[in-house]
């Protein structure tokens, strides 16, 4: 919502690339009538896109036209097409750039000119520090144009990489997006999809059939469900174009405009010192019982508003955006309800990418920890859990944004270190009274320490008494305080205020080398 709002607020400052318009008029002013007439004609033709028949076909599939999509994404009259009237673009820099492929023209396939226009917008967006939103509905490279369109892709990919970490880049896949085109969304920070009408794949079902003899539908191969639950390529899926665009507006509101912009603070009606009594009883006393970490997140953040990222992928970790006293924060939480909240390959990668986004864009990180450790087994070891788990560790250690950590229950072993621990420069680390911070759970520990002993139960009880509580960590200063769960919101809000001025200097380097 705010995206549009802010766009509206700033006046008509948008630029757009329209893929089918090849002619750019120089100026409208003091031109002969014939030129004006030509401009008008071109404009009308451009607005028609691929003609009424194709427009109807697009509508029939439940899909909107590019301009209709933009009209939903942004506030009325806040959008001016670039490269249609060049002087507009030059007169006023875009604050939110928008690249948009129109399916009604050549199936939205990428032409050289098209790519050029996208690049122009992205360059502008980077110069002024404005997020880029791509609405993708494209068949891939325009075969008729040959190598030129391949070059076009590469130009865009380069822009995506250059812009990465400078301005937020969001892709909304609203139709087929195949071949080379898929790498642009893959390079952006977030990829959203529309259910049933959007697909992302390198090669379509026909090619798959001829090469591997697999029978697979478009939906199975690269539909929204596939990418939000199995592959983890897309971050969320929405019911239809309207839903998706409305949600995108909402999502945009959480983001700063660039890496030089602080996390936005929206007007907040939820008292920052609100006590949350239900948290005092949320963690079951039996440490083997599950509970829903999302309940904790919802009740701590402003107005229970939580924009979850990848809600259906690697569900043992929850990541997403929320606000605390109006300020955007990134939330990372282990989910005890799924696989006991352990860290595995997928959840580590999911968490790491999110943490790095937040760090790049000055969004404070709140971490809720209830982690029994890394998932054991050959599948994980062969899959490279060491390498992938290191990503999350790396991301948290590298992050210099304010980091507040709350250990709600288990924080065992290496996973304790990983989850934004004090040792990775957590700014404030809290433990709830239910916290158990130890190398491992009582049962396993006793089996190792007292191997062959008879009195295992006593040893377990002793271990629990000594280690399965927050005191050993608190005594050493590894947690800053043991807090009443109901006061969690108030404490975090207060800490975030203090941490606004946090500054960390890191030594110069070309770039860090995250274990990819």
């Amino acid at each position, binding site marked *: 919502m705010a995206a549009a709002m802010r766009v509206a607020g700033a006046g008509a400052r948008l630029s757009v690339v329209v893929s089918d318009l090849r002619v750019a008029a120089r100026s409208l002013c003091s031109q002969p009538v014939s030129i004006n007439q030509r401009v008008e004609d071109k404009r009308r033709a451009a607005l028609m896109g691929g003609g009424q028949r194709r427009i109807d076909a697009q509508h029939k599939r439940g899909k*909107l036209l590019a301009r209709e999509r933009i009209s939903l994404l942004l506030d009325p009259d806040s959008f001016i097409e670039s490269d249609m009237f060049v002087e507009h673009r030059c007169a006023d820099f875009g604050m939110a750039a928008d690249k948009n492929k129109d399916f009604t023209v050549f199936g939205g396939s990428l032409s050289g000119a098209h790519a050029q226009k996208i690049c122009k917008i992205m360059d502008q967006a980077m110069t002024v*520090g404005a997020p880029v939103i791509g609405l993708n509905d494209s068949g891939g490279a325009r075969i008729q144009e040959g190598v030129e369109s391949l070059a076009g892709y590469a130009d865009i990919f380069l822009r995506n990489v250059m812009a990465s970490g400078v301005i937020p880049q969001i892709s909304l896949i609203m139709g087929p997006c195949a071949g080379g085109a898929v790498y642009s969304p893959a390079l952006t920070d977030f990829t959203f999809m529309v259910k049933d009408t959007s697909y992302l794949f390198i090669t379509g079902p026909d090619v798959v059939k001829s090469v591997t003899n697999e029978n697979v539908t478009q939906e199975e191969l690269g539909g929204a469900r596939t990418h939000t639950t199995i592959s983890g390529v897309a971050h969320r899926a929405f019911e239809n174009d309207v839903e998706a665009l409305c949600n995108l507006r*909402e999502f945009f509101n959480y983001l700063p405009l660039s890496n030089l912009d602080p996390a936005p603070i929206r*007007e907040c009606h939820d008292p920052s010192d609100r006590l949350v009594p*239900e948290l005092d009883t949320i963690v*079951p*006393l039996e440490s083997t019982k599950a509970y829903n970490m999302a309940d904790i997140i919802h009740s701590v953040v402003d107005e229970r508003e939580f924009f979850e990222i990848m809600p259906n992928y690697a569900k043992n970790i929850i990541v997403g955006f929320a606000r605390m006293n109006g300020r955007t924060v990134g939330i990372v939480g282990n989910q005890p309800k799924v696989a006991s909240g352990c860290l595995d390959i997928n959840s580590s990668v999911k968490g790491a990418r999110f943490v790095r986004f937040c760090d790049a864009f000055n969004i404070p990180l709140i971490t809720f920890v209830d982690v029994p450790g890394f998932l054991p087994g050959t599948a994980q070891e062969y899959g490279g859990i060491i390498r992938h788990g290191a990503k999350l560790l790396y991301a948290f250690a590298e992050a210099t944004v304010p980091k507040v950590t709350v250990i709600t229950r288990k924080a065992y072993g290496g996973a304790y270190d990983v989850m934004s621990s004090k040792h990775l420069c957590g700014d404030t680390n809290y433990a709830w009274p239910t916290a158990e911070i130890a190398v491992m759970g009582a049962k396993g520990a006793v089996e190792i320490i007292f191997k062959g002993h008879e009195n295992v139960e006593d040893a377990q009880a002793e271990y629990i008494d000594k280690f399965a509580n927050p005191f050993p960590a608190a005594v050493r200063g590894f947690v800053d305080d043991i807090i009443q769960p109901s006061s969690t919101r108030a404490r975090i809000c207060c800490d975030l205020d203090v941490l606004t001025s946090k500054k960390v200097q890191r030594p110069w380097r070309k770039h860090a080398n995250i274990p990819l």
Partner: protein
Amino acid sequence: MAALWVSVGSLIAAGRRGQRFPQQLMQRGALWTLKYASYYSRQQLMVTRRLCSAECSNEKTFDKILVANRGEIACRVIKTCKKMGIKTVAIHSDVDASSVHVKMADEAVCVGPAPTSKSYLNMDAIMEAIKKTRAQAVHPGYGFLSENKEFAKCLAAEDVIFIGPDTHAIQAMGDKIESKLLAKKAKVNTIPGFDGVVKDADEAVRIAREIGYPVMIKASAGGGGKGMRIAWDDEETRDGFRFSSQEAASSFGDDRLLIEKFIDNPRHIEIQVLGDKHGNALWLNERECSIQRRNQKVIEEAPSIFLDSMTRRAMGEQAVALAKAVKYSSAGTVEFLVDSKKNFYFLEMNTRLQVPATWKIGDSCLKAHLPVEAEVFIRRKRGTEEKDQGRGMKSSLCANEDSPFHKVEHPVTECITGLDLVQEMIRVAKGYPLRHTQADIPINGWAVECRVYAEDPYKSFGLPSIGRLSQYQEPIHLPGLVTYGSNRTEALKRMEDALDNYVIRGVTHNIALLREVIINSRFVKGDFNTKFLSDEYPDGFKGHKLTENERNQLLAIASSLFVASQLRAQHFQEHENSRVPIVKSQVANWELSIKLNDEVHTVVASNSGKTFSVEVDGLKLNVTSTWNLASPLLSVNVDGTQRMIQCLSREAGGSMSIQFLGTVYKVRILTKVAAELNKFMLEKVAEDTSSILRSPMPGMVVAVAVKPGDMVAEGQEICVIEAMKMQNSMTAGKTGKVKSVHCKAGDTVGEGDLLMELQ
């Protein structure tokens, strides 16, 4: 240092309080009365209570009482003990160590681990606790050990007094058949056609024919709605027999049944009695409990709008006669059915403090009025949840230990008579004679109680729901869900406000139904009976039906809320480094399209400050509020009418759920442009629900009657799901061949889980 002073200070204060307790209480009462007299019309009640306390301030009862229970009932007892200057001992299991009743009591003893059989039912540990704390008496609350003969015996052996009716009376009244015989003997009107134990279905039919249809079949041992079926013909009698005996067996371990004449259109009115150990007994007027769903009370009020003083006295005298006949020496309830001619028939006698029927199940952990069912339900399911993760288990625990407690016993009776029943029970247990005469018992004003349950009123007026209570806020200035007024209209009006101000999030609740009933014209007139709900809502409860005016108000409020949140979304705090100059949006008019119940309305809204001017389908309304988007309650003024609304959800796609006049309405708001484009969106194909059967509630499958390949007829029973100890028959939606069955007996199923598919 400061901390030390504080604690010393509080010690001194505590000491004083101990010494001068009754007087101080009186002063406080008086002060309270003066201060709030203008807000409440309860001063009459307060004065009555004060007089009571004054009268008995010198009466010595016990030094220390152990409360052998937990939750709300324990709190209620402790509260009265405090008032009487009696020290209290709470017992708890290790998981309940920090619950409210433990905090309230002077001492607390842990009696074992979480399972109630090892804690609240652990007699040895409780006897140990009694010895250790030297408690002189035990208040058992209800459930747990309140009707345990062994426990009573153990107590007697240790010379500890049991507060409550003696076991003889409990036994006599606990058995429906024996109680009727006793009632007959005491010349109490009983229901015609009453007969003995039923052996099998054929005998059931024979008896039913003798009595004449309709008949009611129910379990001997159970109370409330458990195992109760109504049969209008032979076949229904057989069905009823089968169900009732199964339910009786599973709920009470006793499959005895009884069949009796079913009184059509009866009212359910009960008389509160109070007896002492000297053969005295009083009736404390009636409670009208006719508004029921599945034979369980939903709304209670005192007095009854239906009774005249003659009938009231006749009923009271019979109730007292029965109490005396069983030497009843505590507070109890005698239930009657009253027909339209004001003939009344004895139904049963409840020998304890009120146990709402739904709370009888399993253990009776009452943390607050509402989450109880969910809590109990979840505890019950614990055994199976581990095996079957993800299915059925929708939540962990109901929180809300800290919510204020209320209304365990009979608050409506206490409200109108000014008596504290727990206090009277304690006095009587000590052996004091009753200190009131029948003439002392007043009817002051009117009191109404609504039973807020965690259940979905849109399904059979209330099928259990579970979930985790995420937000809970009781109406301010109103003690729980009992409202009191100088007359019925006043009490009902306050109830309306109370229900609007009740915030319950995370679990489905029945507030919509309660609110609808109390504003129903038949109910307001007093023209109702136990069939009220099924008569008024023959097709099931569908929520409040909006008048055109109300609908416009709702639409105006929803649009204003939408615009308010859109405007708020622009309000960012400016940063030093912000490179976005935020110019105020100059949108003057918001053209919106709102969908409510499949109807689309056009709205134009504009705002100035806190007031929105909204044109709904061309009709102009002014809407004013604080527009606090975080507050669970929002007081809104629409053209002079004050409405309390709750916005339950607001989604980016424009969907909004608003609780308005008790009912939750779903609206979808889109800007005009979005609404135009939304027309192109394809309808997603909805599931064909006639060929599949989904569980309407969480519960356990007790029986599956079909297997894949079977032909089933429409309405044929597919399986039986037990939820809250009620057996619910799931039937086929259409005739067809069974494709697959997704459940088996013993499975725990969640709401919406697939049970069976037809081809």
